[in-house]
């Protein structure tokens, strides 16, 4: 197949799609808005149609793990995801309402939501241990990090709000003044960098999209 179809045409397509979306932002011209709506709908379908890819890669890795360690315990580990996969899938397929059916919601809330909530809980520990390791008054920058972190933490704990009420305005000040200033600068810088990548993509020069592998 020619170089044009393999490499150039996809890049032209990406540029065209992007330019149309940008144009629709600047120009309130109805046909452009219609194209924007159509493309937004299309990308949802394109991405949704690719989902089974994940299952293939999950399976490849699982088989490899078992081949490396052929024990009963490993076999149990390898089978487990498929048991739960089947539980979820069957309850969506066989019960009316699909993912909205009470049967599916049972799986969803007891496993998915619940584990999701527990993962957030685990992060309390990891944040605490990382702060124990790094919150040391070793330099001005480190002290600034600690000030921003500890004062606003204490401000959020009810006990400190009651017995050291000055912590509330001080915590708010750290949050609303230096945090806003620093954060705003960082957001602007990162946004400009993202824009530059975007313009390069529309220019048809984004190297990542040219890699074939």
């Amino acid at each position, binding site marked *: 197949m020619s170089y044009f179809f393999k490499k150039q045409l996809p890049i032209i397509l990406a540029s065209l799609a992007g330019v149309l979306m940008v144009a629709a932002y600047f120009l309130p011209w109805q046909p452009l808005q219609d194209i924007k709506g159509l493309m937004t709908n299309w990308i949802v379908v394109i991405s949704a149609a690719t989902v089974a890819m994940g299952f293939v890669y999950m399976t490849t890795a699982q088989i490899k793990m078992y081949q490396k360690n052929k024990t009963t315990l490993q076999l149990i580990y390898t089978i487990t995801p498929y048991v739960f996969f089947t539980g979820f899938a069957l309850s969506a397929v066989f019960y009316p309402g699909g993912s*909205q059916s009470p049967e599916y*919601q049972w799986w*969803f*809330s007891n496993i998915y*939501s619940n584990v*999701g*909530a527990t993962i*957030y809980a685990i992060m*309390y*520990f990891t944040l*605490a*241990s990382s*702060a*124990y*390791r790094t*919150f*040391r*008054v*070793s330099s001005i920058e480190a002290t600034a990090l600690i000030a921003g972190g*500890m004062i606003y*933490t204490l401000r*959020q*704990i*009810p*006990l400190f*709000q*009651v017995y050291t*009420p000055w912590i*509330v305005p001080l915590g*708010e000040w750290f*949050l*609303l003044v230096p*945090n*806003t200033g620093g*954060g705003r600068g960082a957001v602007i810088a990162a946004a400009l960098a993202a824009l530059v990548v975007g313009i390069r993509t529309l220019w048809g020069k984004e190297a990542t999209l040219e890699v074939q592998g």
Partner: protein
Amino acid sequence: MSNNKTIWHKLGNIDYRWLYALSLICTIIPILYPLGLPVQVSGGTIGYFDAIDKLPAGSVVAVSFGASAQLLDEQEAQFLATWKLLFQRDLKVLFYNPLQDGTLMLQTELGKQVIPASYGKVYGEDYVVLGYAPLGEAGEASMGINIRGVYTTDWKGTPLNDLPMMKDINSAKDIDLLIFVYTSCTDVEFPIRQWVTPYKTPTIIATLGCCGPMAAPYYPTQIQGFLSGSGMGTELEVYGRVPGPGAAMSDAKNIGVLPFLFFFIFGNLSYIGNRYKWGVKKQ
């Protein structure tokens, strides 16, 4: 080698699992034996309460319920207290969900944790649930222009025109207060841009603790009050006299954070002790 390690070195290198175990223990104790420690009510919470409390009888409140099941622990105290306050008063409440999770949570929480009927509220007359629509900012804008352009039925499929409460509710002009519940911090701009700026709809918001920093600058000029995190949910429980799950959480927070604070002090004592060689005999 290890015998030569000073107390300062050891203090700075305690196995993290001690921190984890102590945090767990200190969090569990107040859950089992609540201490009832006091709570300070902040301005954002008072503004939030007043916005509901000062509404005239018969006012219409729209609740954009963008809560997530995975974040229930952070949001539950807020929305339970809010619902109780709404149903205690003579108000019409219109729920809609910009997140799929929101519908599931309304199914599990409304009618079980807070029962509208026990406040004498009737579905269709005093409150309506519109259900899930992937709204985003554009959807919020559409809701402001024409609610029926987004929803033609409620979550059970009943046409809106068949619900008595919806008779005169068509757009933002018919909404007296917007309560915007969300979990993605930048979403705070949606109600500001789509409700407050064009329609001057009085708006209060409820979100996660980590989103407080982004929400606070809008108070009190653009929003009348805000709740960020379960802590401010507890404050609403206390200030609005509607007890809920928040109080026990605040207690557990007070004690649960202590091991970390001690470890933080240990870490710095270790750093300073090592740096200035405290307790090390000079050669």
